[in-house]
């Protein structure tokens, strides 16, 4: 028996040696396959739907308060149509792979799926989802009111290669939150101007954000608004943990500075000098003034830090968290939370968007539910509960906003960001790359590694560049010709106007 074991061990070592000897130059990554041929849009629905009791529409979506609302609203749809709607809520960190597993397995388990802006190109290119153009054309325009969806969201989240692939459920577009009671305290304002030479106000650049972070970082025994602190107070809250949010913060800086994750020629832009400077600013000038937990934080920890009165501001942050953030005013005496655009207002602009699974057994019925829940009526109900809709008619409805500061106080700022994106025609190349979903995960790893100091900034960004090249098997394809033959996303100058804020 032991002789056999010995043979097994020796045999294995020999095979391993052969493998290592054969290694030499590692095999190049397999060449990128040509994308799957475009899916022929299905004909407009003509057949009568099956009897109501036979249809269950399964919708995979992100877990959170949005899903709680969706389940409530789905009951209205069920009552109206007699169809069943099953809402499957999945944590965002697993939403991509859980849906893709169902796609590649061809199970048809989900009729409606939810995609993030970075996954749009991949899902469309791989034939996982159906184009909606014919469905939209065959539907009553009043039911959809497509022109009511903000054009920045339509371009960023819904369109790819000329087709519409989904309709937005809600937007996570980023802005900026801060303690305006601190920023408007006369003592703090005087001290800031004396130290930095310009008035304390909403930062219009990331350098100003870094100054504010440094200024408000206080030790126990220091004063804040004239009161002596018993605990350390931090200048900024950051989402630097190994979650998808760290790249949202860092890319907001890079994009504002005109840098690109993927350059116009499809090669990675992470080693460009100014890109490296952006990551250095995050790590060297913002991280030191964030709570120690920043290196493991996701967005909910930053909300917790604000509500515990630990931080003065966020970096670029999800405006849809307004309803949570504003609860700080109940929990920290004398505090007021204000929303603004992030410096330069070039940030993650997009929505969690609903699409029809190409493998759905009930595509027509799925379409009925999809257009209903993204339609004006359901979206208004969503907004009443604090949901971040993408519909212009709601975002700009002053009557609707009146008296609803706690739920939708961020809407004017959200509209500012979306308007700026659309007017500037700024749509990052990354939004169109078919390997976007995988690159998104690599960003999480290497931006977190840079932020935590595991690697130097240069090392981490080189590794990210290598990973991008591996996934794209060379330069990435960027099918955004519809934006113009020589299109390049170039940031536009922007100054935030505080008059749009909804104050306490």
């Amino acid at each position, binding site marked *: 028996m*032991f002789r056999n074991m010995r043979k097994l061990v020796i045999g294995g070592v020999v095979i391993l040696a052969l493998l290592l000897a054969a290694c030499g130059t590692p095999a190049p990554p397999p060449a990128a396959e040509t994308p*799957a041929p475009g899916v022929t849009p299905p004909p407009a629905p003509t057949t009568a739907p099956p009897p109501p009791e036979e249809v269950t529409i399964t919708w995979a979506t992100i877990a959170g308060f949005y899903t709680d609302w969706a389940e409530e609203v789905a009951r209205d749809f069920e009552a109206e149509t007699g169809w069943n709607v099953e809402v499957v809520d999945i944590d965002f960190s697993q939403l991509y792979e859980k849906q893709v597993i169902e796609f590649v397995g061809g199970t048809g388990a989900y009729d409606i799926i939810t995609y993030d802006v970075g996954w749009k190109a991949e899902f469309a290119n791989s034939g996982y989802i159906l184009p909606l153009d014919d469905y939209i054309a065959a539907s009553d325009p009043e039911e959809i009111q497509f022109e009511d969806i903000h054009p920045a969201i339509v371009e960023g989240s819904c369109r790819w290669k000329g087709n519409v692939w989904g309709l937005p459920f809600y937007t996570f577009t980023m802005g900026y939150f801060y303690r305006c009671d601190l920023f408007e305290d006369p003592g703090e304002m005087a001290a800031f101007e004396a130290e930095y030479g310009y008035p304390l106000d909403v930062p219009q650049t990331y350098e100003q954000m870094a100054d504010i972070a440094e200024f408000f970082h206080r030790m126990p025994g220091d004063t804040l608004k004239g009161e002596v602190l018993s605990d350390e107070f931090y200048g900024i809250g950051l989402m630097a943990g190994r979650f998808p949010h760290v790249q949202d913060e860092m890319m907001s800086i890079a994009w504002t500075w005109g840098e690109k994750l993927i350059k116009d020629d499809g090669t990675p832009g992470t080693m460009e000098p100014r890109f490296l400077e952006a990551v250095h600013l995050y790590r060297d000038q913002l991280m030191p003034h964030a709570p120690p937990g920043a*290196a*493991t934080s996701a967005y909910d920890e930053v909300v917790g830090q604000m509500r515990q009165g630990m931080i003065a501001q966020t970096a670029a942050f999800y405006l849809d968290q307004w309803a949570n953030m504003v609860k700080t005013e109940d929990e920290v005496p004398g505090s007021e939370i204000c929303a603004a655009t992030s410096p330069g207002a070039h940030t993650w602009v997009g929505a969690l968007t609903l699409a029809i699974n190409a493998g759905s057994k009930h595509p027509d019925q799925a379409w009925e539910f999809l257009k209903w829940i993204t339609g004006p009526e359901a979206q208004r109900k969503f907004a009443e509960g604090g949901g971040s809709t993408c519909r212009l008619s709601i975002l700009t409805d002053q009557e609707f906003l009146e008296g609803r500061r706690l739920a939708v106080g961020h809407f004017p700022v959200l509209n500012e960001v979306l308007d700026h994106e659309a007017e500037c025609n700024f749509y990052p190349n990354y939004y169109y790359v078919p390997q976007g979903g995988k690159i998104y995960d690599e960003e999480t790893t290497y931006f977190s590694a840079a932020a935590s100091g595991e690697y130097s900034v240069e090392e981490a960004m080189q590794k990210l560049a290598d990973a991008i090249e591996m*996934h794209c098997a060379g330069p990435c394809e960027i099918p955004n010709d519809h934006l113009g033959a020589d299109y390049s996303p170039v940031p536009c100058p922007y100054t935030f106007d505080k008059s749009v804020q909804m104050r306490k």
Partner: protein
Amino acid sequence: MDTAIEKAPGVGKARKRAMSDTWYAVLLITPASIIIIFFALFPLLYAIMLSFRHVDLTSAVGIGPYVGLDNYRFALNDRIFWESTRRTLTFAVCAVSIEMVFGVAIAFLLNGLRWFKGIVRSLLILPIASAPAAVGLVWRYMYHPDFGVYNGILAALGLPEQNWLGDVRLAMPSVIIFDIWQWTPFVALIVLAGLQSLPREPFEAAELDGASTWRVLRRLTLPMLAPVLTLVFVLRTIDAIRLYDVILSLSHGGPGTATETLTYYLYRISLKYFRLDIGSAIALLFLYATVVFTAVALRSMMRVQAERARRA
């Protein structure tokens, strides 16, 4: 003569019983065999097949053509593979060593306990009985530098607070501490069972001869416990190198890649990037290493068992 043997009373019946015993044994192991075939053997063979093909489930390729040893070549030249292997081995060596030492010590203490032995034993089971992913989530909040209880305790004692899961130097030790908390009781209970099954006569004889406690431990207890210690060491090591669910809930492999073990990397490459070709190659290399380790580790124990059986 054959006829005489065949006609001898009892022989035919004995032969019939032998056949029935065989088929009975087959019948008893059939359900487990079916499960093993469908849930272990078939996936293993499928993974071997995939490891020799180009497989990218999210591209038009799907399950593509044979590429020979390219996937193994890629894995063995993959920097991330070797870094995650190094982290996995670091974790396993540190965690298992400490668990063995603490576990044996606790077992000896428990063995000498006169009162509340049952209650203590029951309490020891609690960490093992808890789902690692759920407990990992709790520990993540306990480790939190801003809100966590551990830093609260350190602050109360006047000691500097730590960034347990956020500091790249402390993140892996924090995971190791969690693993030691969860699995030391397992080692302790197995070793305790081994201690309680040892024959008393040699110890009585040693006591009569005036042997010291240390001599008894070194010359009698530990050698007699060797098979149990070897077994629990192998089981814990295999479990430790497969670490995944705790990493997912505790640290997500971060900060950066500081706690990304080989299994977590395998999850990333197979279920985030859907490169089942490279994932299968890595998994098979991992399986091979585990089998070799187990064979080598158990060799001495098996030799002793074989010797005892031969003498018996």
